[in-house]
């Protein structure tokens, strides 16, 4: 991926841009969405990202974490990141509050193949927090309904409490998307679906599998079985795209941490076409 085409304004990939937290929304237990404003006007004007790309959020003195963009404000100048408490950086971020200032490098990584989706049915399959990196792709499709075919969103979470962005599903449905949600473990009062996500792929309406694009994001094992269900339904391997997470340090293919076989997840991924990584998904601990 050419950095220029991702809109990375920095000539020096190590340079972080200052940002300020302008809003925090609590989503599910341990997960919040942070709205960030780039405080340098020049940087803000030039900043562009594509659905699926991520930023390195930099908390001086603490470190960096790779976090996908989960959207932007209506005006476009505020970047949303949906973050789960994991370790040092994410805990420190949670301690900052609205008005908090830190740094950001990005955007990095390959985007979802929006061109490929054009004119085709699209199935977005997400597990857990995997819905966050898919959200900008979902928004892009729903904002230009004439350019894409039917959008189906299949989403699995651990329990009904862990459903991310639950408040927007009605809007998505209103805008023409089919939204099917399932949980691994039910809770009292849950009227919805129970079972793992790949089952939703087995059962979904798939009128033209050869011309349907699958965008998948979630834990490795979930993606593996989702891919297998999609292949079973006649979706070609080269229409299936997955989003892989690996340890990431530099985000620009220079530090070696995120290698997955021949791929550097940070610059060749995180979004990868399934047929490119398929031989490796079989080998453990690669």
């Amino acid at each position: 991926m050419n950095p220029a085409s991702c809109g990375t304004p920095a000539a020096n990939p190590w340079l972080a841009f200052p940002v300020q937290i302008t809003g925090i929304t609590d989503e599910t237990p341990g997960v919040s969405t942070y709205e960030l404003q780039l405080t340098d006007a020049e940087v803000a004007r030039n900043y562009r990202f594509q659905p699926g790309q991520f930023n390195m959020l930099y908390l001086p003195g603490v470190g960096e974490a790779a976090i996908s963009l989960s959207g932007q404000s209506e005006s476009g100048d505020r970047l949303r990141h949906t973050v789960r408490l994991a370790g040092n950086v994410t805990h420190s971020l949670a301690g900052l509050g609205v008005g908090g200032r830190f740094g950001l490098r990005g955007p990095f990584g390959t985007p979802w193949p929006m061109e490929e989706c054009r004119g085709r049915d699209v199935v977005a399959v997400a597990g857990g927090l995997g819905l966050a990196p898919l959200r900008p792709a979902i928004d892009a499709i729903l904002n230009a309904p004439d350019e894409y075919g039917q959008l189906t969103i299949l989403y699995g979470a651990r329990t009904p409490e862990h459903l991310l962005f639950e408040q927007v599903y009605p809007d998505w449905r209103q805008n023409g998307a089919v939204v099917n949600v399932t949980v691994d473990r039910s809770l009292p009062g849950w009227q919805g679906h129970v079972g793992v996500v790949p089952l939703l792929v087995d059962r979904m309406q798939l009128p033209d599998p050869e011309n349907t694009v699958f965008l998948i994001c979630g834990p490795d094992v979930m993606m593996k079985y989702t891919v297998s269900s999609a292949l079973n339904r006649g979706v070609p391997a080269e229409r299936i795209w997955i989003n892989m997470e690996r340890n990431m340090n530099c985000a620009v293919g220079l530090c070696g941490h995120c290698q997955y076989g021949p791929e550097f997840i940070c610059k060749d991924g995180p979004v990868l076409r399934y047929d490119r990584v398929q031989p490796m998904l079989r080998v453990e601990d690669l």
Partner: protein
Amino acid sequence: MDRQERFLETDRLQTLIDVLTDAGYQVVGPTIEQEAIIYDEITSVDDLPRGWTETQEPGQYRLQQRDDEAYFGYTVGPHSWKQFLFPPVATVATAERTDSGWEMRTPDEPPPQYAFLGVRACEIAAIEVQDRTFLHGPYVDPIYRDRRDRALIIAVNCTQAASTCFCTSMNTGPRCRSGFDLALTETADGFVVEAGSDAGGRILEQLPTREPEATDLTAAETARQQAVDQITRRMDTTDIRNLLLDNLQHPRWDEVATRCLSCTNCTMVCPTCFCSSVKEVSDLKGDEITRERQWDSCFNFDFSYMNGGVVRNDIRSRYRQWLTHKLASWHDQFDVSGCVGCGRCISWCPVGIDLTEEVAAIRADAHQPEEQP
């Protein structure tokens, strides 16, 4: 290309160092420290390991006195020029707390201008391999670029080889063919010198050289041939990428895992390994932060950790990462092998693991993928 060759007498070698110093270069070359020939700043020919050589075997490196007074009569040691172009510790960025948040910068003071004296053919190849990583990808590493752009390479053709060398298998040596500014071949009387660039030519003009005699040229040729003749180690690289990637479940990985200590030595001495981690270094108040990049290694346990655990959890998968990265996936990533055949990882492995032997063992008993219809 036929380059013009000149001859520099042995006792005029100091003029090379002086000319380089006058031209503003910091001269880095071989010198003896802690019972090994390493690379460090030098100011005089007296710093050079004159009259010294070494013997190398798997898991072994030993200095030895020569029976002549050669300056460059050794092969490669624990250091490589990677130390200077991609420093083991470097500041990539800084952050300073201000009234309105953080002031974030990247370093802008110019790095030293190095002249590397004594660069071998496999080392030129290694630098070119690292150029692909740090300069020719979608992102350029500014630290490497600034050092590399300003560096002058004064190569020395090998006149002998260690038992661990296998550059002929990797097509990287022992003769320096390109990628240098100046190249020397040492003979009993002095050095046959050729320039490989305009910058090298300008240095050459300032040296007290003479036209080489036919005997000088023959002596240089004989010396270079001696290195070729001494190379005994081989690695069969035929279709090596697919050989390794088709054999990720080969029993040899389990076997080598019982010997490998996961000590990271091989990745530290390897002139092409480029893995690193950035650490935050902060002053006591936490107001001044430097982001320090340090060499890292795929043999470190936590190198691949992520939420939910470490990806490469055992020595088997870490050794497999190292070897398949060097010899297989490097081709996919950079269109070149990640191994230049310098043999460092063989000598500096505490238990003497030899990658050429590992590859041979896998090849001897390889799983053949099914024929594609």
